[in-house]
């Protein structure tokens, strides 16, 4: 298992060397798009990782809510945090591109707004998990399912409504010389997501072990205090 993890880390490390090389030295700078278009090569994969994470979180939440699986809760917690992390990447790189392309950092456009809502829902999942009290796990799981329902809406928003955000066809209609850089970057972010999920899941498992050990210790202490008193010595 450890070998798989190190292999994955090695692939990600290679990807972080190859992807920037392809993006900056191999993919052409189209005159109508300019240099700012280089942000696209990390912005879209970040969004893909965010959506993937939202679905993984929903899967774990469903397993926990409907089947009472403990691993489901661990997976959902790890994935919810990663959804927020990749959401930060999407919501910072996007406005930087938009400032150059549209002249504004932010527009209350349907695509941007739905992504922002998705980001807020997963922040709510983390807050519910942290401060929700005894039912926090179930509340967070329900919220995560609600958040995942927003993902198809985000994807379809540019098709269903008039928006200034580039359409999803931007990938299929991409210049052929840009494709290797884009797909290497997409693969890199998928592998990076798996590595981060792995380490975050390990943290959640350690936390579970800590809780179990604390309960065992508390039970032992209680048993010690509840031990019946020794019979009196009448000698």
């Amino acid at each position, binding site marked *: 298992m450890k070998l798989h993890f190190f292999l994955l880390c090695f692939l990600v490390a290679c990807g972080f060397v190859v992807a*920037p090389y392809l993006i900056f030295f191999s993919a052409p700078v189209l005159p109508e798009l*300019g*240099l*700012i278009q*280089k*942000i696209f090569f*990390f*912005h879209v994969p*970040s969004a893909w990782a965010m959506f993937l994470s939202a679905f993984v979180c929903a899967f774990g939440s469903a397993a926990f*809510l*409907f089947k009472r699986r403990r691993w489901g809760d661990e997976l959902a917690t790890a994935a919810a945090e990663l959804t927020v*992390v990749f959401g*930060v*990447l999407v919501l*910072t*790189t996007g406005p*930087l*591109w938009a*400032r*150059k*392309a*549209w*002249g*504004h950092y932010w*527009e209350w456009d*349907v695509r941007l*707004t*739905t992504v922002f809502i998705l980001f807020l829902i997963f922040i709510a999942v983390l807050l519910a998990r942290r401060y929700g009290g005894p039912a926090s796990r179930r509340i967070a799981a329900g919220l995560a*399912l*609600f958040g995942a*329902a*927003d993902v198809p*809406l985000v994807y379809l*928003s540019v098709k*269903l*409504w*008039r*928006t*200034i955000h580039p359409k999803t066809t931007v990938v299929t209609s991409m210049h052929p010389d840009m494709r290797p850089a884009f797909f290497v970057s997409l693969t890199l972010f998928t592998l*990076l997501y798996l590595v*981060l999920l792995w*380490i*975050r899941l*390990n*943290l959640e498992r*350690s*936390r579970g*072990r*800590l809780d179990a*050990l*604390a309960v*065992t*210790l508390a039970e*032992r*202490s209680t048993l*010690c205090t509840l031990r019946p008193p020794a019979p009196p010595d009448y000698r």
Partner: protein
Amino acid sequence: MNRFVPMLSMIVTLFCSGLAAADPDYQPYAPAPAAEQVSAPLFVVVAYSLIWLVLLGFVVSVWLRQRSIGLELEQLRRQLDQGGQ
């Protein structure tokens, strides 16, 4: 069946809120005038630096949390070995 009804209603609510948000008179923005143009190389560098910083921050935060849990685990194990007192 009962558990799917709230989910379905949530999806419908999200979809309807999206529909309501779509203004039929919406006009896409024109690109900013040349005077307002910003340096593309600077923005690309900022974007890539942010990506690195956020990812590094996350990895460091997980590592710190893992270390703190490891220390607590060690302490609890020691207490258990000493007889749970």
